[in-house]
């Protein structure tokens, strides 16, 4: 319904554009702006109020109606059942209003359903009338202002600028909303579970804690083991990705023939574009069983979803990131330095190890930190590959769990939004955000410093 209204508003605005342009044509060269701008300005003046009314109405109506509905129910019939029950009652009324037949309902609710659908019909008509009136009035008012003296282009461009600012603020709003969402739920969570308990407790068993209706604070939300698992996986991943990535970058920049570089570089870029699920699946399908077999051959007991397998695959996943950032950093080292080193008789290896690597170090470190941040954030791989057992253990052959996995598992059960499990997911999310934010800040600073020294 709002969709079709928005569409008709836009059509009306298009008509206004042509009318405005036609009205400005006779002004000729005496006008301050070309007719196109007069048309555009008229269209804007029409469309904006119309859209604003539609959107505001669409946002406000459901909540308003819900409040009216609840107020309209007989006193005492909903007060006793709490928030969850109220939501249920509302859901029932909504289902009725949409024409679905539900058995075993209170007469009060059936009646409320009928009332809701009636109100909605009224709302629809009222909205239509309001929008039509707004469009007409704004068109008539704006039309009188189309004169040769109107600086239509400046006005249109001002409006465009406002549009640009609105678009740019989306990115800001995203950050704000992310922070607010994470912080609000986390504060809520810390009301149930003390922060120290969460950060340093070692017993993580959210499902048990609420099965027996016990209130938290019993240590079932001690996330230290989850953090330990994340760190273990990230450490293994870095141990794979950093040396391999550096070697690859060194080889491609300093040693490889141009022909080799021409195919190896795009191949690595393709690897970087492979979706994470593909890596996850490969971990589950091939890598974890292979490691288990290898472990058995060596007489070791390896759990089928070892942290080693997960870390290995995460490492392969972030490898292209490390190698391409190291590649950039190495190639940003001025050619002068390379030649100066070669000119005193250094071998390529000495040039790389003593001159190029130290000069490129800030950039490389920045890349490594970015990769680490990615490894910490992307350990969802474990969702498929590793188990969900949270234990503090640095045994790479045992199962493990990570922050991202726990977020996904906690929210996989369709719990109400104020359930401590949901809140715990947000607390874990905030931790993840803080850690990756710190890593990124450091990384960007290093990379920026690296590019500054190149420029000098």
């Amino acid at each position, binding site marked *: 319904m709002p969709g079709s209204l928005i569409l008709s508003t836009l059509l009306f605005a298009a008509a206004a554009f042509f009318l405005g342009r036609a009205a400005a044509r006779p002004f000729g060269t005496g006008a301050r702006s070309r007719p196109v701008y007069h048309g555009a300005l008229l269209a804007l003046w029409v469309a904006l109020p119309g859209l604003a009314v539609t959107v505001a109405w669409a946002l406000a109506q459901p909540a308003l109606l819900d409040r009216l509905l609840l107020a309209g129910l007989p006193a005492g019939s909903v007060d006793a059942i709490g928030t969850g029950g109220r939501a249920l009652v509302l859901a029932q009324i909504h289902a009725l209003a949409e024409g679905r037949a539900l058995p075993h309902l209170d007469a009060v609710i059936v009646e409320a359903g009928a009332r809701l659908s009636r109100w909605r019909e009224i709302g629809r008509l009222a909205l239509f009338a309001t929008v039509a009136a707004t469009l007409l009035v704004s068109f008539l008012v704006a039309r009188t202002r189309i004169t040769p003296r109107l600086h239509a282009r400046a006005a249109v461009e001002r409006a465009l600028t406002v549009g640009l600012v609105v678009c740019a603020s989306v990115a800001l709003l995203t950050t704000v909303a992310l922070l607010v969402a994470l912080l609000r739920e986390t504060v809520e969570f810390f009301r149930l579970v003390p922060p120290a308990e969460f950060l340093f407790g070692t017993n993580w068993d959210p499902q048990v804690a609420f099965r027996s209706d016990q209130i938290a604070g019993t240590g079932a939300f001690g996330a230290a083991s989850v953090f330990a698992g994340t760190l273990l996986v990230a450490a293994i991943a870095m141990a794979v990705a950093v040396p391999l990535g550096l070697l690859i970058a060194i080889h491609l920049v300093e040693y490889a023939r141009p022909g080799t570089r021409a195919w190896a570089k795009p191949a690595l870029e393709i690897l970087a574009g492979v979706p994470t699920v593909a890596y996850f699946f490969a971990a589950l399908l091939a890598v974890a069983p292979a490691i288990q077999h290898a472990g058995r051959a060596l007489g070791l007991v390896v759990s089928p979803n070892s942290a080693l397998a997960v870390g290995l695959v995460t490492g392969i996943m972030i490898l292209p990131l490390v190698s391409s950032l190291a590649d950039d950093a190495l190639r940003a080292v001025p050619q*002068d*330095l390379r*030649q*100066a080193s*070669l*000119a*005193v*008789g*250094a*071998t390529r290896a000495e040039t790389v190890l003593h001159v190029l690597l130290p000069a490129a170090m800030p950039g490389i470190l920045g890349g490594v930190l970015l990769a680490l941040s990615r490894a910490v954030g992307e350990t969802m791989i474990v969702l498929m590959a590793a188990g969900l057992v949270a234990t503090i253990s640095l045994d790479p052959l045992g199962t493990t769990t990570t922050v991202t996995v726990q977020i996904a598992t906690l929210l996989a059960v369709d719990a109400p939004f104020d359930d401590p499990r949901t809140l715990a997911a947000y607390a874990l999310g905030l931790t993840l955000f803080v850690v990756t934010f710190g890593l990124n800040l450091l990384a960007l600073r290093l990379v920026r410093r690296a590019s500054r020294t190149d420029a000098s």
Partner: protein
Amino acid sequence: MARPSLLLAASTAEPSPPTKISAQGISAWYGPIRALENVCLEIPSNRVTALIGPSGCGKTTFLRCLNRLNDTIPGARVTGTIRLDGVDIMGQYIDVAELRTRVGMVFQKPNPFPKSVFENVAYGPRIHGLAHSRAELSVIVESALRHAGLWDEVKDRLASPGTALSGGQQQRLCIARAIATQPEVLLMDEPAAALDPIATSLIEALIDDLRESYTIVVVTHSMQQAARISQHTAFLDHGRLVEVGETTEIFSTPREKQTEDYITGKIG
């Protein structure tokens, strides 16, 4: 060890013929572009040889053939023979790292490593294992810096970064870095191009001093500079060697019309 050792050949070479480097029929290409065409040039020992000519004439390319630094440029190709003390250095099996130890180079733009002054000079001796202790290394560094005429200016700030020095000081640091590995030949690619007149005169005086110990090849844009510092001059144009001889002769009685036009400023 199948590779001919430069060191062995060098030690047995007779010092009596004053030719240090002999280049025969050198041609060079960057991709499809021909930069040098059949250049033959003898470079005498313990003299300063200046390479002059208009820009793009192949001076720098020729210079970079002498320590095979063109190898590092993708698509560059060089043919011909270059003998250093009678040993061909163009061969596939020559250890270019060792060659460059013996043939040092100073670049047009000062390019100190982003390390301390001391580390800049110590870099060569360290990778070549010329010193067996920190004390020996210090001696080498000090003597190189003294040779380069920089010691008095930097002796109190050996630990500060080399990039913090002034342009002229940086270039002398690069010279010190080049001579610290005790090369026999020093290649200088317009060593004063990026410097102001005072720094330039310091560098020129230094080159004159260094002639005692090294064979020096200097690429320069400036005729006056070539006349001031060199004993031998070679004039290149469009990748060809036009004329070579004693500097005094070249500047006073050039044999070729082309050389005369260039020296008197009619071309270039």
